[in-house]
């Protein structure tokens, strides 16, 4: 059979390819800025080279090392709870047999996922305020405790960031587990029923093992986010009071580059993050392929 010509394929990809080259690959060349004392008026070709100085400075400056730690801690906690909470929620939701109730709950818990951190940040700053915010008013009247500095104390800030992230995303995270639950063969439960297994035993021996492959995929793939602590969220929630515990790589890059004009070191931090993330993503996809036969395409 004659080969079908494939030039239309190349033509179809061409526009996307051009966009990727201009907006993704050309900026990658710009990482040379991290080896320069970059001055915008001199440009990339005119700025003096400084070798590894920016990276040395990065690991010598106390604040930048702290920022890397903060990122790691916040992102790590988010990964754990963003896996655990949707998993448990899906199991509990699976016990609700009335379809309309289950669907209503799902629609409601999806809502925060679709709102931006600008909107949610505005709402959270308002309701978490120590000066008569809704949450502190509630805690005061119910438990009689002093206002909690959710957004003005470093440790509380980390807590708030992780909890609010989980609050925003857990509903959306249940979708893949609900889909996996729907794929469980009902005859397994019927057989267990005949053998007299309680619902608890059925959950332990049928439901949870059926969900584990999906949990492995979600868990391993999220490894790539170990240095992604959520720029949008932190940027819209933080303030100078919590920089020490709440500042992360992405917000640090923004402030160092845009507000302080130290482009060399900002690019170096960004490059550090990109390289570490790349290694982790590659490892996590290999793992997901090995453990659960997952491929993106």
């Amino acid at each position, binding site marked *: 059979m004659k080969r*079908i010509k*494939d030039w*239309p394929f190349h033509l*179809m*990809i061409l*526009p*996307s390819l051009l*966009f*990727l080259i*201009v*907006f*993704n690959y*050309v*900026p*990658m060349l*710009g*990482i040379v*800025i991290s080896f320069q004392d970059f001055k*915008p008026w001199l440009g990339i070709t005119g700025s003096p080279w400084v070798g590894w100085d920016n990276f040395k400075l990065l690991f010598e400056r106390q604040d930048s090392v702290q920022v890397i730690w903060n990122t790691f801690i916040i992102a790590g906690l988010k990964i754990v709870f963003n896996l655990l909470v949707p998993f448990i929620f899906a199991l509990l939701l699976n*016990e609700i047999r009335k379809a309309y*109730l289950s669907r*209503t*709950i799902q*629609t*409601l818990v*999806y*809502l925060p996922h*679709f*709102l931006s951190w*600008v909107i*949610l*940040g*505005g*709402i*959270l*700053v*308002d*309701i978490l305020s120590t000066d*008569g915010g*809704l949450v502190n*008013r509630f805690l005061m009247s119910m438990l009689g405790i002093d206002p909690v500095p959710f957004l003005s104390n470093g440790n509380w800030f980390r807590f708030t960031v992780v909890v609010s992230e989980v*609050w925003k995303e857990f*509903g959306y995270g249940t*979708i*893949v587990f*609900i*889909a996996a639950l729907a794929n469980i063969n009902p005859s397994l439960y019927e057989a267990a029923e005949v053998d007299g297994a309680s*619902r608890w035993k059925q959950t332990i021996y049928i439901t949870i093992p059926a969900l584990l492959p*999906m949990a492995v995929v979600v868990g391993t793939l999220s490894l*790539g986010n170990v240095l992604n602590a959520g*720029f949008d969220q932190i940027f*819209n929630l933080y303030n100078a009071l919590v920089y020490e515990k709440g500042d992360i790589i992405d917000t640090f*890059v923004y402030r160092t*580059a845009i507000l302080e004009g130290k482009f060399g070191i900002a690019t170096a931090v*960004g*490059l550090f993050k*990109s390289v570490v*993330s790349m290694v982790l993503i590659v490892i996590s996809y290999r793992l997901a392929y090995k453990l659960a036969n997952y491929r*993106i*395409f």
Partner: protein
Amino acid sequence: MYHKTLPYRVFNVCNTIILLLVAICCVLPVWHVLAVSFSAKAAADGNLVSLWPVNFTTIAYEKTLNNPVFLGSIWVAVKRTVIGTLITLTLACLAAYPLSKESRAFRGRNVYAWIFVFTMIFNGGLVPFYVVIQKLQLVNSFWVLVLPGAVNVWLTILLLNFFRGVPKELEEAALIDGAGHFRTMFSIYLPVSLPALATLGLFSIVFHWNSWFDGLLYLNDKTDYPLATFLQTVIVQRDMSSMSFNPKEMELLSQTTVRASQIFLGALPVMIIYPFLQKYFVKGLVLGSVKE
């Protein structure tokens, strides 16, 4: 029959109540903002509003909807959402079709696939990107909101996986009848992919409507801001300069209620559309994750 046992019934009632409470917690903050936005100045500034408006008034909305900067930012947001989504969907269709072919039918397919995927795992970072945008003269231009994100690799992969599921016989029949690849894509693949395109469209619309950082970074004139960026300056940076309060209004209007009305109006479009597209995005998400 576990359904009939007493412990399971007790569990079921508790479980239902707890899950309903959790679900309510997900919408309560938005509800609170709605209540504040309809409250009078004294109640809002005195933190007296919880979940119901105190001294109901619509004055905050009148002020917000008469603010030309706010209305202008809605127009910019609508424009970027429509144009951005159209460009993204067009490019995604064009790229996903050839990438969904086997490398036997399309030599070079794997090379292209890697060029696409590599952009997902590595990027140059903020500063080099800014330099490129500047060199392209895109700073302060509307197109900076649309062009840099025009190719969405993740959405392209979702669509690619969907195209893979289209029966091969359809394509073969079209090719034998003399249709070219462009014709096959438009007349065969796209019509059967409408649910997938609806999913992609929803993701792209939400992405564009909620994007604020590009506007903040690349646009200097506030009248060019899309809604999300405008809201960021008002809600987070507490910048009320675009709102001119005259002394008479100061007595009736509080910044709190005006801000609340803007938060609510900004969230409204997305809140209206997502429940209707629920079944599509549930499908779309699963499409990209479960493999045999």
